[in-house]
């Protein structure tokens, strides 16, 4: 196993961050202990305390991993083939003289799908940089009204930072097709086919339209990379796309796309979460054999006070 929590010879900045983190942890623990002693109804009685504990643990440990990376600690990362395929897709499209299509979904960003839109934007930023690097024509379609400005700027940034400002043309590069699911889908499928796209990159929260985009891409023989964390649509992407991000891989892809070691380190928090989950399941099964129910503890709500 290659986990190490040692932060020997921490730099002053890291020390400050660790101190701040320690203060937050001590504060939280104190609040909980004092709350229990004084019999205050500290937590929402409808939410199990375990969910708060899990959230807080993951946030804190994830940040520890990030501090570690700031101090220069490196670690191996498993290849995510769909991520590597993005560059291949962009390069191929340029060779064939066909545009690259990216879409991040539809809907309003102030819903619980926000993290998936953000992951999609991360991938879009990556594609925009690659489009600048290879001189690809990029068409970004979307149905998220709040994100229009961001997408325009990301595409612009991709071309400008690669020294190809002449390729940036907002009316061609960025197309918003309403936040209405199937109006968006009808316009996107038409765009994919009419523009004869060479690579079709679909990452974000998708609903029934997932398969529409995949089949439209197939009509033009596009190289397809797709990903979503919405369970019901994953099968369509995995079965029909050339490369697929399965579930949480889209969040990891966003981290990889940033090219920032510190951001990448945060996904170790995801891994630790999975290990904790595995441990809890195994422990729960063992305890069950002994007649103890871990589930009851996990479902415990704050009944103090």
């Amino acid at each position, binding site marked *: 196993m290659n986990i190490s929590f040692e932060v020997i010879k921490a730099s002053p900045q890291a020390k400050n961050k660790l101190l701040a983190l320690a203060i937050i942890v001590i504060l939280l623990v104190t609040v909980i202990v004092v709350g229990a002693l004084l019999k205050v109804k500290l937590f929402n009685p409808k*939410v199990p305390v375990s969910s708060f504990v899990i959230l807080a643990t993951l946030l804190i440990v994830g940040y520890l991993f990030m501090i570690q990376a700031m101090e220069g600690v490196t670690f191996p990362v498993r290849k995510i083939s769909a991520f590597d395929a993005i560059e291949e897709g962009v390069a191929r499209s340029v060779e064939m003289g066909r545009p690259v299509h990216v879409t991040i979904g539809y809907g309003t960003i102030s819903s619980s799908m926000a993290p998936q839109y953000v992951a999609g934007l991360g991938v879009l930023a990556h594609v925009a940089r690659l489009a600048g690097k290879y001189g690809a024509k990029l068409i970004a379609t979307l149905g998220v009204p709040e994100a229009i400005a961001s997408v325009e700027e990301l595409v612009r940034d991709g071309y400008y930072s690669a020294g190809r400002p002449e390729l940036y043309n907002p009316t061609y590069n960025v197309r918003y097709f309403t936040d209405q699911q199937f109006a968006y889908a009808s316009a996107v499928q038409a765009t994919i086919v009419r523009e004869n796209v060479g690579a079709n990159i679909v990452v974000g929260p998708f609903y029934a339209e997932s398969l529409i985009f995949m089949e439209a891409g197939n009509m033009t023989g596009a190289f397809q990379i797709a990903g979503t964390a919405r369970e019901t649509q994953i099968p369509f992407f995995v079965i029909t796309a050339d490369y697929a991000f399965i579930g949480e891989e889209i969040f990891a892809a966003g981290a990889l796309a940033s090219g920032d070691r510190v951001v990448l380190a945060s996904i170790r928090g995801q891994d630790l979460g999975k290990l904790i989950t595995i441990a809890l399941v195994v422990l729960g099964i063992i305890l069950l054999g002994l007649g103890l129910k871990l589930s009851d503890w996990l479902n415990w709500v704050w009944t103090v006070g």
Partner: protein
Amino acid sequence: MVVRRVLPQFIVSLVIILMLIFYFFYINDDVAKTFSADDKALSDWAVIISSFALIVGGVDIFRFHLTQLRRGGLKQAPFSVVTLIAELTMVVFGAYGLALSYLNPALGITITTQPQFRWLYTYVYAPSDSAMYSILVFYIASASYRAFRVRNPMALLLLIVAIIVMLGNTSLGALIWPGFLPLRDWIMTIPNTAAFRPITIGAGLGVIILGLRMLVWREVSWMGRRE
């Protein structure tokens, strides 16, 4: 720099932390009541802001098609006219309905019950929407034809499972072998549930870690341009 990048990110962290506190903590009945009122206020803010974003988006679509009208040539311009007229008509009748709800409340007409608006919704929006949804029946058929090709052992497993489920779903399967229906039910309840459970857990962890990056200002793509 501060007002361009730091302040927006600070607001993001602040709102996230506030909303988490509102949800997880209770303290006592009065505080909890304040929490839920403030929480409601923040969600209302989001509704108001996204309403404006929708209007900006509508303006963008209008601008896009105006440009197409000028530069698109005969192949695109007539269609852009269709979009422009349709959008404008819909907004005019919607706004008329809204105005009526203030000017003449006795009529009981609001945006969605304005007759012309309703006509457009019922005879243009609704059929197009349903047609786009049901177009999937064609796509799922051609996708099945292409995708269930036995190239390796995993694909064989995929194919066998798919055919069992298809036969179990129809009355035809039961004619061939009565066991298809129970087998299909078993697949849907046991392996299918198990297969999606790690994905659900992983997606949840991914959301939390992305939230962490938002909180510590390491997720910046939503702000667009790097300055």
